[in-house]
């Protein structure tokens, strides 16, 4: 019988077990830290929304210009990116991720309701888009729609894009879906009180929001004019 170096095999087994266990432990620590960051971000947004609601109540009699930048689209966008990353790294069915997503959906709904109230009070046109998607792998158009809306939201901060996982089991979200009678024919967009089904390209969105297109064109023209001005030689004194 040859020497099998059994003691070395056992030691190697223990060392590898420790390495694997440490990898999982460290990885979990990082994941927990991320979840804590998201949770504190959600808490901050929640506080801000509460503050906005209070401010709204206090200023109910005040002029519309005071209601300018109370809402939280930028923070919600960062939060959405982080949640999307967590979904990819921990999995869409991870209970922590699902809970964070529910809370995020609730915050979006509250922000949306505040927006609606402000629009009614100030008689402005709705610039909010409620986007319902599925990430169960059955909706390739949802992926494309997500890219279009992300780009649209980045270009026009005044347009609020709220994204909801249609299949997320959450009473507030399901009420919103039932209220607007949104069918599982995804992607679906709720703009004002109108529900639109299927993929909408950027051009289609500009047809719905022509003012944003005009604004963008105006900005482009101004930019080009400024560029031309800067390229013209200046007179020497």
């Amino acid at each position, binding site marked *: *019988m*040859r*020497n*099998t*170096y059994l003691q*070395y*095999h056992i*030691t*190697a*087994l223990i*060392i*590898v077990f420790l*390495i*694997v266990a*440490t*990898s*999982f432990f*460290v*990885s*979990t620590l*990082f*994941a*927990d830290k*991320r*979840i804590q*960051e998201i949770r504190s971000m959600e808490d901050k947004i929640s506080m801000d929304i509460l503050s906005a609601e209070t401010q709204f109540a206090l200023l109910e009699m005040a002029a519309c210009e005071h209601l300018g930048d109370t809402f939280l689209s930028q923070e919600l966008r*960062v939060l959405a990116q*982080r949640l999307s*990353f967590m979904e990819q*790294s*921990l*999995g869409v*069915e*991870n209970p*922590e991720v699902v809970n964070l997503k529910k809370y995020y959906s609730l915050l979006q709904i509250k922000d949306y309701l505040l927006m609606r109230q402000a629009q009614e009070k100030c008689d402005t046109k709705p610039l909010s888009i409620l986007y319902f998607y599925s990430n169960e792998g059955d909706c*390739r158009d949802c*992926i*494309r*729609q997500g*890219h*279009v809306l992300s*780009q649209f939201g980045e270009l026009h901060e005044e347009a609020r894009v709220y994204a909801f996982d249609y299949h997320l089991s959450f009473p507030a979200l399901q009420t919103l879906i039932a209220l607007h009678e949104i069918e599982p024919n995804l992607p679906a967009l709720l703009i004002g009180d109108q529900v639109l089904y299927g993929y909408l*390209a*950027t051009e289609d969105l500009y047809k719905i929001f022509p003012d944003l297109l005009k604004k963008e064109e105006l900005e482009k023209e101004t930019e080009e004019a400024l560029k031309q001005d800067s390229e013209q030689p200046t007179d020497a004194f």
Partner: protein
Amino acid sequence: MNTQSLEPLSIGILIILSIALYYQVFLLLVFLGRKPSPLTQKLSSASLPSVTIVIPCYNEESTIANCIASVLALTYPQEKLNIVVVDDGSQDGSIEALRNSTHQERVLVIQKENGGKYTALNIAIPNITTDIVGTLDADSFVHPEALIRMVEKFADPRVMAVTPALKIHNTKGFFGRLQQTEYTLAIFIRNVLASLDAIHVTPGPFSLFRKEVFNKIGLYKKAHDAEDLEFALRMQLHHMKIANAHNAYVYTVSPATIVSLFRQRLRWTLGFLHNMIDYLPSLFRLKYGNLGMFVLPSSLLALGASVLMIWHLGRGVVSIVDQQLLKFSAVGASLPSLSLPSSELFFYINTSPMIFLVLTAMALTVALILIGKNLSGNEPLRMGILYFLFLYGFIALTWYLSAAVRTLFMRKTIHWK
């Protein structure tokens, strides 16, 4: 605590990574824990055994003269060293090169019809009467001290064969540096495998055998163009000890292009796989020790794992391309945003257990290469380590996958010449 949800493929890759780590840690432990062999000793000139070195040659006109010159330059008593060159029906100028080489009176040349490397060796070996038989590839060159350092290992009467430390001759360029690092790692591995009695190749570039080995287990066999592997396996099955002299350097000409490298490695891999099929009964047998229980199964697993890895990688690449095409169809071409502040970037760093295991395996690989470098005489590896760590796996996958497909569906071999 959060647990990551792992799909079956990820679990498979996690297991493979753990086994790879286990292999590395085990080799490292054996290396650190072994005692130096007390039987390796300097031999006096009178006590040195007589040696015959057989050089099979087929179309090696560019290297044969230098190969013979390196043998003639060996530090070894002239009267105890015989050289036999067997020309295996070369069609180039090998014979002329042999005739023009200096000291041709010391070299016995045998010419025969082409029949493959093993036939060339087998025609010479039965007539050898020296204590030791050496086999040397015609495209390899030996260090002047290589023979004497290897012969010293025969002071241990249990040692039946000795393998050297293989180095590559041309270390320039991408493939040169890549292979230099690979060979440096192999020097470490072969050295530890010798301690485990688990060397399963007596390398063609240069190996020494006691003459009695051939008397006991026979000559070389046709073995899927991997006769040196089959012969070593046969020796191991007969419980014949194969030692390693890590300070006996032999330089071999390595492939300089991806095509020639692919062909060489495909031949090696196919040779390994087909011989494994032939020697299947020796696997997982306790009487064959670490060779049967650990080394050969691990090597087979490494091949199987490569197929799984390529599937995983391929799936990842297809998914990325698909996502980018979808994005392109939606919003056109756009570069990924790099405008995140550093605190945000930290959030998006991949910290999955897989990443930590890969990093640990890479760190261990570097450690083993550095030990091999120390064993082999501290030649600078420069960028070779980086090439090896980040690119070798992907390049090796091509011949692993090709060999697996050929073995499973075609059982085709690639001939050595």
